């Protein structure tokens, strides 16, 4: 192999490496670590401790000590006990401390470790384009959801807002009212744990979009589909807005089915039925995009927050199904006298 060949192959390899590096960089934009300056503990250790603070790998029995606290089909909101997670971190840091010198060292550096883990904790789940939040850690709250909805609809969208927003609001991640989620994880097929950086006033849990979905709705008074009918609201294809009231299915178009074929749509007849509706702007024929718009079904969104409608429930007619007393969800309700009475055994 001559020198020239060697040179060429080296250049080729370098070019390939450069290309792959640039490709990798473009595919997975890695935000630069915003933590600069001298550190007491290495960042990877701080990250691990921050993950521990967010209860990664903590056995579930330690989170919910009794099954009655999280019965089936329930949602439980909570505050994260900082003293508990600090004790957790202290336990992890105590590994390998044998002598009093070790203890003295740990006591000397622990305040710094605590602050640095606070910082690392806020960096959890930071998307590439978001400004990295820094500063002291605040209150962390969260939600435990145990329901068949978690098992059947993997990838639920959970959004928490620090202020009241309309039920149909769709605020981007960067909106200041939107609280960051520090952790969204299914601990079990039917148990979802959500940790929120801040105290939300309103929480939206939405059906996973899985893209958009297309389908029908059963007639009024038949939530289980016993009548085996399907209705769709005709929409204006230019705006996607429905032409009929969403909460009154009187004028909805019934979907036609093929006889002797369970659940199979008769598309031609359904199309004819849709064409008969005035105002859809569909012209004389229906193409697939127009057909898809007519069958569009928005994901259902459950709103947890103060009672009372925030807006008109356009597509989610029952999304304001909040229960009374919800306003109290994130307010401390325990006073010292009650606590004393409880702990000393005097029942009120």
């Amino acid at each position: 192999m001559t020198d020239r060949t060697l040179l060429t192959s080296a250049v080729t390899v370098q070019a390939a490496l450069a290309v792959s590096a640039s490709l990798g960089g473009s595919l997975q934009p890695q935000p630069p670590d915003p933590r600069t300056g001298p550190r007491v503990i290495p960042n990877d250790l701080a990250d691990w401790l921050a993950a521990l603070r967010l209860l990664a790998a903590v056995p579930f029995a330690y989170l919910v000590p009794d099954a009655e606290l999280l019965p089936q089909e329930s949602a439980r909101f909570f505050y994260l006990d900082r003293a508990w997670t600090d004790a957790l971190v202290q336990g992890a840091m105590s590994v390998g401390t044998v002598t009093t010198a070790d203890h003295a060292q740990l006591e000397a550096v622990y305040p710094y470790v605590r602050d640095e883990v606070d910082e690392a904790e806020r960096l959890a789940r930071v998307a590439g384009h978001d400004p990295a939040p820094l500063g002291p850690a605040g209150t962390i709250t969260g939600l435990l959801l145990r329901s068949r909805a978690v098992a059947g609809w993997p990838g639920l969208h959970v959004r928490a807002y620090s202020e009241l927003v309309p039920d149909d609001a769709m605020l981007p991640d960067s909106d200041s009212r939107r609280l960051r989620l520090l952790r969204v994880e299914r601990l079990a097929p039917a148990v979802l744990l959500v940790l929120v950086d801040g105290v939300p006033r309103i929480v939206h849990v939405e059906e996973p979009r899985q893209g958009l979905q297309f389908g029908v709705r059963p007639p009024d008074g038949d939530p289980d589909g016993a009548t085996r009918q399907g209705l769709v609201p005709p929409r204006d294809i230019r705006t996607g807005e429905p032409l009929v009231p969403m909460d009154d299915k009187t004028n909805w178009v019934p979907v036609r089915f093929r006889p002797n074929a369970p659940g199979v749509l008769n598309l031609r007849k359904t199309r004819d039925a849709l064409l008969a509706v005035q105002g859809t702007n569909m012209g004389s024929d229906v193409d697939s995009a127009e057909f898809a718009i007519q069958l569009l079904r928005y994901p259902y969104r459950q709103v947890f927050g103060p009672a009372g409608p925030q807006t008109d429930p356009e597509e989610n007619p029952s999304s304001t199904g909040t229960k009374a007393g919800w306003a109290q969800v994130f307010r401390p309700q325990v006073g010292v006298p009650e606590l004393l009475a409880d702990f000393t055994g005097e029942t009120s």
Partner: protein
Amino acid sequence: MPSTPQPGFFNLWSALTPPLKAGQYRLDAQIDLDPGVAPTALPVEPGQTFFTVDAPRFALPADQLLSTYPPADGNGAYSERLPQVVLKRRTLPWERAPGTGADATLPWLALVVIAEGEGTLSPEADITQCVTPGVTLAGAADVTQGVYLEVTKTVIDAVFPAKEDLPLLCHVRQVDLSDTELALGDDDGWMAVVLANRLPWPASADPTTTGGAGQPAAAPVRYLACLINLEGQLAALPDAAGDETGTFVPVDAIAHFDVYADAFADPDTLAMAQPAAGTPPAGPPPATVARSTLADTWATGPPAAAAARALGVDAGRAVRDLMAQPWRTPVSTVTTDQTYRFPVLTHWQFTVDADPSFEGLMQALDVALLGSVPEPDPQAPPPPRPVPDVAATGHVGLAHLTRRGDQATAWYRGPLAPRPTGRDESATPHGPLPVAHASDQLRRVTPDGREDLTYAAAFEIGRLLALSQPPVVAALMRWRAEQFGAARAAQLAAQTVAGTSLLGGAPAVTDVPDLGRIVGGALLGRIDADPAATVGPRRPLADPGAPIAGLAGDLEAVVATGLGLNLGALRAQGAKLGAVDALANTAVPLAETPPGPVLEGPDLAALRTAAEAVAGGLAAEAAAGAAPLAGAEASASARPDALDDLLTELES
């Protein structure tokens, strides 16, 4: 190119047909050099290039699948939504021609949803087996092994989309890439969507009440969704059915299957052909003849065993085979109906049950703060286990076996508290508690006498979690070793600096844990403070020269005498003009050369000798005056300067 929609919005397009369908092409290139000249006049050899436009055919590349609905192996109430598959490449449904002529523009992909028992999903087979016998697909195949779906004509007529339905079921969606919820991880924001034409409905619980109002559907049904290739087999699809109905028959065949299963489970019935006890009840006929016939085989088939299933062609074949067992019943062996095979690009299954919908589930949730226990219904029978002892703070009384063996109860609260808990809750009037080194330091005793093990348990589980991960333990130990090493170095530096008289009063060593830099800085500082004492006196810029003996006295007198000028006149003129101008204006008297005899012979030699002697004396005198510049050897007579002092000091 239309503009990108806003986040949260999307555009739908009915079709995006690629300029070239998949296949092999020949590109003929001919160059016409001069438009005014016939091509034959300046012939250029025509170029020919062959190329292939590729597209998936028998298997969907794993990266082309963005999402499926319902989710693979999902289990829930999906009955109101059409199953769909979202493909990454926007042109994919139109990249092949399923038929000829006008049919060439139809999508070649269709998503069919079949219930258990309605068809057969094959194991991996050679791709020549993947189409109905008699049909051949020209052109190259993308894989050698594929999966096919075998269904009877009856099922096709009932379930498959009609040919004219196909364009309605495929569309293209354009979303904003930054809308992560809609973009699904796509790379350009364009994706193709293939819808099914069937609502997956659960079966009703009791076949005798099929379709009766008020009877909730109950029996879950497993469905198989297959993305099939329709190339060359458009003729098998049903006609656009003219019949219609406002309601549809439920999938009740499954219920029949159960009855048959009971019947055939009895070996007597199987072997001895005795009438079974569980004869199928007289109900409306099953939805299709095919499924009724299939029921027998299906009932004796192996149960579906697995719950997890991987999507795509890259999953392990064993898993796939196991998963596909319910659809593995060979259709052709049990029916005389004509059967068709369709290549399956991707497939997944899901179970539709009669659960409440997502909406129903969410609205029925019991919502509260953690730590609240639902009030027991006084009418209800006592619960099998006692209601937990929950305090208003969220603490739970748990059985506690103490180290001495006593049976006690202790309070415990997890990290999830029903009220805000301050971080400094552990602070005492004397300040925050020190860092705990053992879990026992965090045990408390509550006013009611019971122990509160909350934070002790947290400490212990944190310790165990760290110990359970060797890399973490190693990182902790390494970090601690580095900390100790740094402290040791700092201590050493402090001691070194403190012990050095030269560096007395050096900066605090904890600031710069680098001895070399401390020493260097301190040394330079001391040198700079008093360089004369540290390094030596500064050398003057110029040394004074030695006095010349002949130049002593009044300078004007010397000049006037040497040049033979009139000193008095010079002084008088100098008083007016200045000494320099006076000199410049005064002519120097020149001695007349006597015209006498030339000095020759011994006189000349004597004179030369005398002159040389005078010159030598003058030179020696000048050399003595310049001695300090010449070197140390000749400096004995000169006045010693600062450098000489330093050198002497060094030598001594």
